[in-house]
């Protein structure tokens, strides 16, 4: 039996070692905020953080994870960057069907963690792996810019 570090908790896992992280999160741990979209790391709906890096959970078998820290959309930490991004997402009314939004938010959060003041090109590069069929992209950009502005303002206080 494997143990995974999910949202700050050590979790014993019953799934087979070759199971992609996506299905372990969804089916064994009931963390269904992480979505299946393509199964081949082409759409970003299953984006989670692995030691802070955005990764596609559909393409990572759990046997390779070891002690890496996995963070999903369900990880609610008050005053954290994820909360700020979620707040900006609501302010900009980004979501439509909402299915891709967990992945979008996890990619955006990883970007801002790495680079609190990204250029438009850097936003596009970081978000290019996240497909949204509802076309929320303009609001995704605006919400990321707004989050970036808040971080920059707070830093200069």
């Amino acid at each position: 039996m494997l143990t995974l570090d999910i949202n700050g908790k050590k979790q014993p896992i019953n799934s087979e070692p070759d199971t992609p992280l996506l299905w372990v999160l969804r089916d064994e741990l009931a963390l269904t905020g992480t979505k299946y979209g393509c199964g081949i790391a082409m759409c970003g709906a299953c984006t989670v953080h692995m030691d802070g890096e955005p990764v596609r959970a559909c393409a990572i078998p759990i046997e390779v994870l070891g002690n890496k820290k996995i963070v999903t959309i369900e990880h609610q930490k008050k005053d954290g960057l994820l909360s700020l991004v979620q707040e900006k997402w609501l302010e900009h009314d980004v979501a439509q069907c909402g299915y891709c939004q967990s992945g979008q938010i996890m990619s955006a959060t990883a970007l801002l963690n790495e680079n609190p003041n990204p250029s438009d090109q850097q936003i596009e590069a970081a978000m290019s792996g996240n497909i949204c069929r509802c076309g929320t992209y303009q609001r995704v950009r605006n919400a990321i810019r707004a989050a970036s502005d808040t971080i920059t303002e707070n830093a200069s206080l």
Partner: protein
Amino acid sequence: MSKRIGSAISRRSFVKSAGLATGSLLVGIHIPASSEQKRMPLQQTLMNSFIRIDSDSTITLLANHSEFGNGAYTIMPMMVAEELDVPYEKIRLEPAPTRPEYYSPIFREYLTAGSVTTGSCWIPLRTAGAKARAMLLDAASIKWDQPSENLYTSDGTVFTKNSQQSATYGDLLHIIHADGILPREKVDLKDPSKFRILGKPSRRHEAPSKVDGSAVFGIDIKLPDMLYGSIARCPVYGGTAKHYDASASLKIPGVVKVKEISAGVVVLANSNWAALKGRGALKIEWNEGPNSSLSYDFFFQEYRDLANKPGIVAENIGDSIASIELSDNVIESVYEMPYLAHATMEPPNCTALVTDDRCEIWSGTQSQSNDQKVVAKLLGRPEQSIIIHRPLMGGSFGRRAAKSADFTVNSVEAANGEGVPVQVIWSREEDIKGGHYRPLFVHKLRGAVDDDGMPQAWHQTVVGQSIMDGTRFAPAFMVNGVDLYSVDGCLQEPLGLFRYGTSYQIPNHRIECHNPPKIGVVPMEWRSVGHSHTGIAYECFLDELAAAGGKDPLDLRIALTKGNPRMHKLLKLLKEKSNWVKPIGKNKGRGIAARVYSVSPIAQVAEITMNENGEFTVDKVICVVDCGFAVNPLGIEAQIEGGIAYGLGAAAFGEIELHDGQIKQSNFHDYNVLRIAQMPEIEVHIVSSDEPPTGVGEQATTPIAPAVANALFNATGTRVRRFPLAKSGLKLV
């Protein structure tokens, strides 16, 4: 989180006659109280078909339209909240059961489609809110022995005029029960000048659940003892298993059972991963069936030939044939549009429980009536015995209204005989290869321009498979043998169900149609339906006529819409907002398209830049729309942004290729869709209107492809007539 949601859902659905069925005070807007509904706990009052109030003042809206990104779950509570005097954010939504009182007044069945939800709800939901409020006023009137004129409501509370007494809505329910207060026959709806919610930009109601991962989509349903199913399908659509060997699959830990269903061979397992591995280990010999020799080249060739032959006349104004014959300024073009998949972010999926006396389905569907009928027939059971639970949907664009109810049928067949719930999730490959597509179309157009450069005659022959022929919708949609959905967007005058035309007046206007036999894959509605191809053919060819007549394409459209004040005004606004007369610069182009879809006029100017590699960017789209009273301007803007993104991705790259019965594309690496870098800046202008609200969900999808193609012509002088643009060597970056 999901565990809790899962158990809540299971508790609700496994306990018979919960919730609604125990209502004691159902006084429906459409139907009277039934004896069944008279058994109800005192703590809940069903004010009418749509509104339930609990003693703690929780207000629940029984939502009779699906939420798949369209914003239905925002505009519905806004309408109720406006009349009931509560914040719309505080209203809970619960999907209404599949019963006649919840049918759309437009479709007369339980269906969310055609961009008509806002219009369908406009009167019924405001009336429901107003009637519920009137009952509460009547109760307060008894409580304080005051005429109801001396009372007012605010934020879920009834007050006496002097504000000395107040009672929450929940506090008044016992009086409604004790005194048997019934809804008033008639109520006055608020005058729009008094609106405090409707017409104001309002954020998506369920958005909080969509930013923290707690929103429950069909794929997220978890039920006790549930099995996961994965289906192996014949590579040729419609093929069946001749023989299969499941021995290797059954050795995979977690695989429980393998069996044949009509769609192929399904592996049932206790996890998705085991089901997927089990499917991979199947050895199947297929009977490919009648579609194995079909290729899309065959269809294109056959349709090009048909386009040269007379079709069924759908519209004939004046005498286009003679007018073109006599003219010395005639142009002719052929436009070709491919099959398109919907590629919803949430792949098709459904969870079903079938026992001897029960069939329950958890399915993200646009079309509960249809699914109920199809499943009832499949199981040989009465329709009302099929219970449909409707979760949120990760996009739909028409896909979840399949008349075949394909993904629902898959799960019901997989679950039948198992006695436990079975969830079947389609892989993305199954979705892209799923055989339900916007059909491919060929349009042949001939037109003549008079000496003043004005279009004198228009003759268009439309060739493509019918969506509605042979379905139960045929009586409404087939007119003189023509599917209205094949020609919607070409017709100058209203026809049948569709009470709008193109908005242009061309003196001689002839539309013919061939609906060739429905063989091969299944033709389906796809966001904007007929307009998804007629919009391209019509608006690009109109641009060709403008060029042939030496006219500015926007000025020509303004001149052609003098008889249609709404579009005429809209186009003048677009000319101003897009700075149309201002030169746009080197390697850049501007294109215009204007459409009327499901009553709402909409027009767009697209601005593009070409680079030296033949690549282009769409820099900006200026969109003007008249959708009557703008119920939620923020939601309208979202639908327009989304409609443009959906249409632009398809125009740029969208194509499903069929070779020897097999679909070439399989996933997002070869079925490209729009990504963030390709998203233009979008500017939306909504005209102010007191007309009843009409749709915006599909409207923005139709002008974008021709607006971009016309902009490419403006920049390069070359017309593109084969879509997607990538097929013509033009790459959107």
